[in-house]
């Protein structure tokens, strides 16, 4: 095994690993500061922040020969016997000079800069910079440039690391951004008439190590140090990208990609990134209600039956009674539900009617899969857990049953009651399709928003949004990721898991981990879900092969 010596510490690296000095030093717990290098992008070695001393240890004699000048760590590959020195005086002086050069004309507007608090320039200045400013320039303002529908460029805050330019060339493949002028007058810009408008544009804001690129959706909304982050999974499509949900006081402020080499690497698409606004939509259904049964609640004359609100504790009991009284049950298990919720829903359904017809819920599909040169794909299937629900349905002997099968089953009059779980962020069913459910004795609809189907329902239940759930989702590539609840749902809403947990008569608070362990022990196909799952998730197929 090749050995690399980092500040006197010997580190073994894999024989086939191709690491640069920054990655090798990180293994030794040493962080080499860098701006322009990013593991997902090509190397330009232009910021000079990662300059370090290197050398080579002779394998035979053990004699170390150092390279006389500093080299950029990002561009220098390590091999057996490479010596890296990250904390010598020479290196420290070099970092202080780079920091000083960057700050000569960088506006000192940190109080009004959205990046303050998570800015590498700030962090490195405190760690490696010098305490005083020798330049007599005191710039405070930054020019603003609109580069696209999602991103604002603060021209003077830029340190010209060109991460954003390389991203649009290498990952999104759209190449909107460029560097204009030369030397001290270099600026990031777009060609006139070609704004930064691709579906991955939001990533340049994450890549920007300073406050030059601002996300219009988040700009001025909140200071970053107020935000709490929860490792989550995006529910926008079946790719299931790992994300961080950043929130404060039960309000989501932004979503950020979470590094996951198996799923999304470092990126997420704009649809997912800005796809959380429905969580705070005023039109959300916030109350469990059912069509009034008592004669005192007469209709209001307009044809719509009167409804009465039902306490959740009563829903647990009355919903079961109503469905039991109605007869043959059909259940649509929404692909927005987690594996745990789907499994519990099936168990609840079978406990009400042992012959209950279980099927996959409606699967929303928009357009085609969209792939980018950097290996990122936005899936056409706009639900996060179709694979997971299918696995659960297979456990209950309902493998391969789709939404169309359920509609046909109901239309053929083979069911007296239907329980449709939905939870889709966008409108998903029209009046004509909903008609199939019109003649049922009981229709339970659990959804985020009102819909033609919801208007037919005898039981109207609110659903939870993606950041309000806890559980496991299985993406299109059979990769299962577990996540916790980031924010609480609005007052009056029980997440589906909590309702199913209580309907199963289980004690205490809803515990998705306990349910997951139970699923893993009861089903060989989902056995990989047992134990503690890594934050990057597990591949269900790999574990089946092993």
């Amino acid at each position, binding site marked *: 095994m090749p050995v690399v010596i980092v500040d006197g510490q010997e580190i073994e690296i894999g024989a086939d690993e191709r690491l640069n000095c920054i990655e090798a030093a990180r293994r030794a717990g040493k962080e080499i500061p860098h701006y322009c290098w990013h593991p997902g992008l090509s190397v330009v070695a232009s910021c000079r922040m990662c300059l370090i001393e290197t050398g080579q240890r002779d394998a035979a004699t053990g004699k170390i020969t150092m390279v006389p000048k500093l080299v950029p760590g990002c561009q220098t590959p390590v091999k057996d016997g490479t010596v890296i020195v990250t904390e010598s005086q020479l290196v420290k002086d070099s970092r202080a000079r780079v920091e000083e050069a960057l700050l000569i004309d960088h506006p000192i507007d940190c*109080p*009004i800069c959205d990046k303050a608090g998570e800015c590498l320039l700030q962090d490195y200045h405190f760690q490696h910079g010098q305490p005083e400013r020798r330049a007599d320039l005191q710039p405070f*303002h930054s020019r*603003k440039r609109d580069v696209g529908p999602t991103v604002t460029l603060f021209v003077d805050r830029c340190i010209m690391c060109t991460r954003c330019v390389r991203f649009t060339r290498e990952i999104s493949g759209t190449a909107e951004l460029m560097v204009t002028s030369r030397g001290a007058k270099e600026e990031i810009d777009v060609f006139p008439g070609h704004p930064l408008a691709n579906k991955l544009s939001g990533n340049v804001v994450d890549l920007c190590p300073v406050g030059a690129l601002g996300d219009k959706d988040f700009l*001025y909304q909140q*200071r970053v*140090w*107020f935000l709490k982050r929860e490792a989550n999974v995006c529910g926008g499509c079946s790719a299931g990208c790992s994300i961080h949900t950043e929130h404060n006081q039960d309000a989501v402020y932004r979503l950020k990609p979470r590094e996951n080499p198996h799923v999304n690497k470092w990126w997420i698409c704009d649809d997912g990134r800005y796809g959380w606004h429905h969580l705070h939509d005023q039109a959300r259904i916030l109350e469990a209600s059912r069509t009034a049964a008592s004669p005192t609640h007469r209709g209001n004359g307009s044809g719509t039956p009167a409804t009465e609100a039902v306490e959740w504790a009563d829903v647990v009991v009355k919903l079961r009674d109503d469905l039991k009284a109605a007869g043959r049950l059909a259940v649509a298990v929404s692909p927005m539900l987690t594996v745990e919720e789907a499994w519990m829903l099936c168990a609840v359904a079978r406990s009400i009617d042992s012959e209950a017809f279980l099927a996959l819920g409606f699967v929303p599909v928009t357009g085609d899969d969209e792939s980018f040169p950097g290996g990122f794909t936005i899936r056409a299937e706009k639900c996060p857990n179709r694979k997971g629900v299918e696995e659960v349905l297979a456990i209950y002997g309902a493998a391969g049953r789709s939404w169309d099968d359920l509609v046909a089953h109901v239309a053929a009059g083979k069911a007296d009651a239907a329980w449709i779980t939905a939870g889709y962020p966008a409108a998903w069913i029209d009046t004509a399709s909903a008609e199939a459910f019109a003649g049922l004795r009981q229709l339970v609809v659990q959804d985020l928003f009102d819909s033609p189907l919801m208007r037919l329902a005898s039981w109207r239940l609110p659903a939870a949004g993606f950041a309000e759930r806890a559980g496991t989702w299985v993406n299109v590539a059979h990769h299962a990721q577990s996540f916790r609840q980031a924010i609480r749902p609005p007052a009056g809403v029980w997440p589906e898991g909590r309702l199913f947990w209580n309907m199963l008569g289980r004690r205490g608070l809803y515990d998705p981990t306990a349910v997951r362990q139970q699923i893993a022990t009861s089903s060989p196909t989902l056995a990989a879900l047992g134990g503690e799952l890594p934050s990057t998730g597990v591949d269900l197929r790999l574990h089946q092969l092993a």
Partner: protein
Amino acid sequence: MKPSDPSITWLEEKPLGLAERLYLPLFVSGLTTTARHLVSPKVTVSFPDQRPKVGNPLIYRGVHRLNRDAEGRVKCVACFLCATACPAHCIDIVAAESPWPDREKYPESFHIDELRCIFCGMCEEACPVDAIELTSLLDLTGKSREEMIFDKEKLLSVYDMTKDAEPMKSTALGCDP
């Protein structure tokens, strides 16, 4: 730390002298203090008919105000540093893009809950643009809780009310404007 710890030095109480044992000299000196206060000028004022005198208004920590710049606009740049520094979490700011070309950000709304505030002055210290200041107004009353949540207009009006008596501290205390 135990009583037997060698780093502790134990001191014996001094034995009483003759004057202490006689009791009378201490009695007289105590009464002298009482008598002196009987004849000295009164410090009590009958508030609110009489206004108490504030020693140095520049360092007094009373009701907040939001300063205006030379053009009469709110000086605040909505950086949230006061809200961050506030130990009582009584400042609530909503930031927005400023309508003026020379400024980037401004507070669309700015609320201080004066009932929650503990008047520690941390907001004033945190402010990078000397926009929020504590005045020497000390009698803060209202008929409801809602009334005691001061919004931006109210805080600016406090500035208009007090700016003549109390100029902005950055200039009054001789700092850079």
